[in-house]
C-alpha cells in the first residue's frame, strides 16, 4: 500500500540512515538509525510524495527476552505510526534504543501531538527524549520509582502512596 514511502526513504537517504525496510501483511515499516530519527521524520512530513501529516501513535517496546531478539540489537524500540491524510497511506518506523543510553531526540518539533506520547514512553519504559519541553511522568505518580512496563520490573511490585495504619482512628 505504501511502498512509495519506503522507496522515497531509500532514495533520499543512502548514508546508512535507513537500516532496514520491510513489509508485513500489507504494512510497510522501516528501521531508522537513531542519529537520523528527526531528520527522516521531518522528510516524511514535508516531502510531497509521502506527506505524512498525521501522527498516529508513538510507543516503545522492551525486547528483553524476546525469542526474535538478536544478541547485538538494542534493547528498546521506539515505534512510530504515521498516516498521510492526502495520500491515505501509512508507515511504521522503528528506532532502536540501547539499554545503557536509552535516549533519542524528541519529535515534538515535527508533530506537536507527540508530546504526551513521549511522556508516556518515558514513564513506562524509561526512554529519554532529548529536547522534550516537559518530560515528566504522565500516568504514574511522581513518587514512583522505576519504569513498570520494562520486562525486568517485578510484575506484582507495588509502590503504595498511602496505607491504613494500625492503631489510628478509623
Amino acid at each position: 500500500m505504501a511502498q512509495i514511502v519506503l522507496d522515497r526513504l531509500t532514495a533520499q537517504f543512502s548514508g546508512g540512515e535507513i537500516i532496514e525496510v520491510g513489509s508485513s501483511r500489507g504494512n510497510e515499516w522501516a528501521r531508522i538509525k537513531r542519529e537520523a530519527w528527526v531528520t527522516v521524520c521531518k522528510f516524511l512530513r514535508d516531502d510531497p510524495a509521502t506527506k505524512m501529516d498525521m501522527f498516529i501513535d508513538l510507543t516503545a517496546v522492551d525486547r528483553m527476552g524476546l525469542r526474535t531478539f538478536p544478541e547485538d540489537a538494542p534493547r528498546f524500540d521506539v515505534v512510530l505510526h504515521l498516516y498521510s491524510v492526502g495520500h491515505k497511506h501509512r508507515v511504521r518506523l522503528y528506532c532502536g534504543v540501547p539499554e545503557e543510553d536509552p535516549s533519542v531526540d524528541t519529535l515534538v518539533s515535527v508533530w506537536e501531538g507527540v508530546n504526551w506520547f513521549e511522556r508516556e514512553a518515558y514513564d513506562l519504559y524509561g526512554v529519554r527524549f532529548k529536547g522534550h519541553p516537559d518530560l515528566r511522568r504522565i500516568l504514574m505518580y511522581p513518587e514512583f520509582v522505576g519504569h513498570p512496563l520494562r520486562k525486568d520490573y517485578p510484575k506484582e511490585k507495588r509502590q503504595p502512596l498511602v496505607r491504613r495504619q494500625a492503631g489510628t482512628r478509623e
Partner: protein
Amino acid sequence: MGFEFHTTSLQAAVNWARKWSLFQYPFVTACCGMEFMSVAASKYDIARFGAEFPRFSPRQADLLIIVGTITERQGPALRRIYDQMCEPKWVVAFGVCASTGGFYQNYGTMPGADQVVPVDVYIPGCPPRPEQVLDGLMLLQDRIQKGEGHSQITIAAERGYDVPIAAIRPKELKGP
C-alpha cells in the same frame, strides 16, 4: 431503670433512623458505575431503602460507595474523602475491583480499597447485579442497626458505650 438502659435504647432508635436515611457519596471510577446507575434509577430504586440521595460533597454524606477500580495514585484522594466525611460513616466496596483489585494484578492497581479505608460491606461481582447491591445494602442496614460499622465501633469505644455486638463477632464465626 438505669442510665444504661436508656443509652442502649436511644442508640437503637438512632441507628434505626440512620439505616433508613443513608446519604451516599458515590466514588465512581470505572464501569461498575453503569450498574450503580441502574441500582439508583427507578427500576431497582434504592430509594426504597432510604439511600437514594447522592451527595457530591463528602461533608454531607455518611455512606461512601466505592464503585470501580482504585489505583495506587487515587489512594490519597480516597483517604482524604473518607476523612472528610462526618461520623458515623460507612463504606461499601462495590464490585470485585473495589473489594480486592479484581482481575487486576499489576503495578498500578490497589488490591482492594480496604488498603486505605475500612470497608464495612463488600459486594462481589464484575459488575454486581443490582439485586446483589440491594442485598449488600440490606446487610449494611443490619450492621448499622447493630452498631457494627467500623466507625460506630470506634465511636462507642471512645465514648465508653456498651460494647457493640461486633466485638463478639469472632465467637459467632467459630460456629458450625
